[in-house]
């Protein structure tokens, strides 16, 4: 069983740069063709400072953590057994190319179902830009298949 004493654990925060090239690559990978996501002139014309990050891009910033999925090491979870259970975002300000975002992630709950056959880790993340402005909050649930 996962160590429930880790509820409340905050991972070391880190910063991630939002790069134009990365945003274009991400747009291509998700089939996004609206020019505001790949053409800076179109983005500025639409009122953005530069290319805006699409709505789910903050999850990409999570991967800029020094360790890949640090929750796995912390809780001793095998990567082959994880599934994504839920994901949610609240938006307060746009993230654009050129921003430097501080990412803070903490574990807010650990619970199990079906007598431990499935375990769940709930994490909350905050994304703050270089001006100290909170841009996005995210909540995600990781599912561990033990059977």
């Amino acid at each position, binding site marked *: 069983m996962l160590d429930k004493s880790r509820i409340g654990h905050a991972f070391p925060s880190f910063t991630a740069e939002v790069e134009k090239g*990365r945003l274009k690559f991400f747009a291509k990978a998700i089939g996004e063709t609206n020019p505001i996501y790949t053409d800076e002139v179109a983005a500025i014309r639409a009122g953005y400072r530069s290319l805006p990050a699409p709505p789910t891009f903050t999850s*990409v910033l999570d991967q800029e953590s020094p360790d890949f999925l640090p929750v796995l090491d912390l809780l001793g979870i095998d990567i082959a057994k994880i599934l994504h259970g839920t*994901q949610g975002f609240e938006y307060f300000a746009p993230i654009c190319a050129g921003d430097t975002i501080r990412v803070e992630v903490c574990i807010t709950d650990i619970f199990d179902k079906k007598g431990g056959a499935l375990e769940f880790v709930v994490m909350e993340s905050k994304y703050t830009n270089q001006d100290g402005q909170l841009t996005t909050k995210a909540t995600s649930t990781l599912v561990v298949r033990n059977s």
Partner: protein
Amino acid sequence: MSKIQVGSEIPALELPPISRFTLALYAGASGDHNPIHIDSDFAKKAGMPDVFAHGMLSMAYLGRMLTDWQPQASLRGFSNRFAAITQLHDAIACSGRVTALLEQGGETLAQCEIQAVKANGEQTLVGEALVAL
């Protein structure tokens, strides 16, 4: 564009079938390098029939549907649960509709139910979005 009201449909977005190429590109672009999405040997060893789609790829498709409909700057909230695995070669369609209009923080928000569905009708993502009007 007609006035947005309770019951208004969000224009649907239909996606091509998930290919290994799509998954490789998404793994690279997203930084999610979990081999279960790109390495068939690893996926089979983990008890899966083959590699399968990142949940966040489908969520990004739902996001495209939302920002095709309303400017991204109007998006206040976006959440879903991953109800079923999207397998290789599945073609999903994203859809949604306005279920309520709310007054919140001095704005009118359209509360929307959103979903991604496989060709056989199975829901893969079920969620909600809040969009300022």
